[in-house]
């Protein structure tokens, strides 16, 4: 039976490049998807682009192209990536530069443009989901619509080697090759729903092959060190088989697939993408061979008439400081440090509700609970929001001053300040978004 094979070469911006190389070398792929845009990443990319019009594409893009471009061409694997981020055209120029440097000729690249909807959002001024306020009431930086398969299809139809998008829904990166290869209708909600199930299973890379799963106890995973990237073999009817790089470590099982199916999903019967409202609620998994799981039972309903938009919103700064204590009375000394720094920051004008402090080793991740054993070592940590960097820096400085001014035996002070760009959401009418595809070819010099 004919099938197409799609692999995940990156499930986030910093994912392992060597695992992607192994996947292409041994995976017998038709398509390699590189996903690398977290919600706030596009906002940061827009800020970079403002500083330098040739920047604003995804992190490590150039390194990925050096590692994968020639290999994919040799193996006849087409690359689909959202690492164009805020600037797909600049990313395409990076591909051209890398291809020339590698003496590759005739490479063809397509960019999918139109995700940047800042001007439409400024005009329409919709409400932000999280705050309920109009966008114009916030200090917003960027607005990017999650484009989908329909906007990507002309790039796939052009038969290029590399497709570079900005913001698109992560599952659409995988669904677009399925729709293009199988000729599925854009209103075949059942197949689009099934394809979206497979896409969702693949979009976070090794999270379906044993990563974010192994616990060393009941959930044993062999050779997590060499965990393989996932592959989906897709059939015309929308069913598929999940596997991983042959010869790699890790695990593809019914359990890993179940966990990833529901990952970051709200109502499993209503998984909304630009392409379809997919229904995950009747999905079933069956292990058909070692590390091969057959996926059935997905479905879908008609897509919505709007695009989700991710907004980057400036929200000042967060300052953070850490200091550790060990030995007898470690907890009491950390608690003394906590009380001192909290009061000093309050005196400096930071409100209690903008502060959070913990004892790492005791209550930082899951809060307090009775009956836990006391740790030998403990780390006091405090983080606070501030409108300006000077005040945010004060958080780490007050922790640092405990060296000389706080309890005995402190160790390992760390301090950080970072700007906060919150990722909020809104929607925009489909008709307000104009997308297009541009082609670039690498000619001989």
């Amino acid at each position: 039976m004919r099938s197409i094979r799609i692999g995940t070469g990156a499930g986030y911006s910093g994912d392992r490049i060597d695992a992607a190389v192994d996947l292409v070398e041994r995976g017998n792929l038709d398509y390699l998807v590189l996903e690398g845009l977290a919600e706030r990443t596009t906002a940061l990319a827009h800020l970079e682009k403002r500083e330098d019009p040739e920047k604003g594409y995804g992190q490590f893009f150039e390194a990925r192209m050096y590692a994968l471009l020639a290999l994919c061409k040799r193996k006849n694997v087409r690359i689909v990536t959202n690492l164009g981020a805020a600037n797909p055209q600049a990313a395409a120029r990076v591909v051209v530069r890398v291809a020339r440097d590698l003496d590759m000729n005739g490479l063809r690249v397509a960019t999918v443009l139109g995700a940047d909807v800042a001007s439409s959002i400024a005009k329409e001024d919709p409400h932000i989901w999280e705050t309920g306020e109009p966008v114009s009431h916030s200090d917003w930086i960027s607005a990017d619509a999650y484009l989908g398969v329909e906007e990507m299809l002309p790039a796939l139809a052009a038969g290029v080697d590399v497709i570079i998008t900005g913001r698109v829904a992560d599952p659409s990166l995988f669904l677009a090759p399925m729709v293009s290869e199988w000729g599925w209708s854009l209103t075949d909600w059942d197949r689009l729903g099934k394809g979206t199930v497979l896409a969702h299973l693949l979009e976070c890379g090794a999270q379906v092959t044993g990563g974010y799963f192994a616990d060393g106890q009941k959930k044993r995973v062999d050779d997590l060190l060499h965990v393989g990237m996932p592959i989906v073999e897709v059939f015309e009817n929308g069913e598929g088989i999940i596997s991983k790089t042959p010869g790699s470590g890790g695990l593809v099982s019914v359990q890993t697939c179940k966990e990833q199916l529901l990952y970051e999903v709200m109502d499993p019967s209503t998984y909304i993408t630009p392409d379809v409202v997919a229904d995950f609620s009747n999905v079933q998994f069956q292990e058909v061979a070692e590390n091969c799981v057959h996926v059935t039972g997905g479905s879908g309903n008609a897509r919505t008439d709007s695009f989700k938009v991710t907004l980057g919103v400036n929200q000042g700064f967060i300052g953070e400081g850490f200091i550790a204590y060990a030995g007898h009375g470690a907890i009491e000394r950390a608690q003394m440090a906590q009380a001192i720094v909290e009061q000093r920051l309050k005196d400096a004008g930071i409100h209690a509700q903008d502060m959070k402090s913990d004892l790492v080793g005791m209550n930082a991740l899951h809060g307090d609970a009775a009956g836990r054993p006391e740790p030998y070592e403990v780390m006091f940590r405090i983080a606070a929001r501030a409108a300006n960097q000077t005040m945010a820096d004060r958080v780490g400085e007050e922790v640092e001053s405990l060296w000389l001014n706080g309890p005995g035996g402190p160790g390992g002070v760390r301090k950080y300040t970072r700007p906060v760009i919150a990722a909020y959401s809104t929607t925009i009418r489909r008709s307000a978004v104009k997308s297009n595809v541009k082609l670039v070819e690498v000619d001989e010099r």
Partner: protein
Amino acid sequence: MKTIRLHEVAHARAGDKGEDTTISVFLYDDTFYDQIVEQIGAEQVRAHFTGIASGVVECFLLPQLAAVHYVIRGTRKGGVAAALELDAHGKSLGWHLLQMHVKL
């Protein structure tokens, strides 16, 4: 009947979604599904997340996967980027849910 921690009979995965956390719980052995599910309803989970989540808990049953899926509202004010928590994504919270006690 004895009281055990949920992690002895189930595994879980947490995900971040804006200001909320999703957690899905899967029984290793689906024969206990009905018996366990009635002890880890939305209200019990909300109580277990007191101090961590400010909002309501929604609960979806997927018996064919031996799964219960929760959407826990108001765990990360401002979302990942603006969260003050050490675990800004809330990925460790699946293991918190697995600390719940159940009778079996």
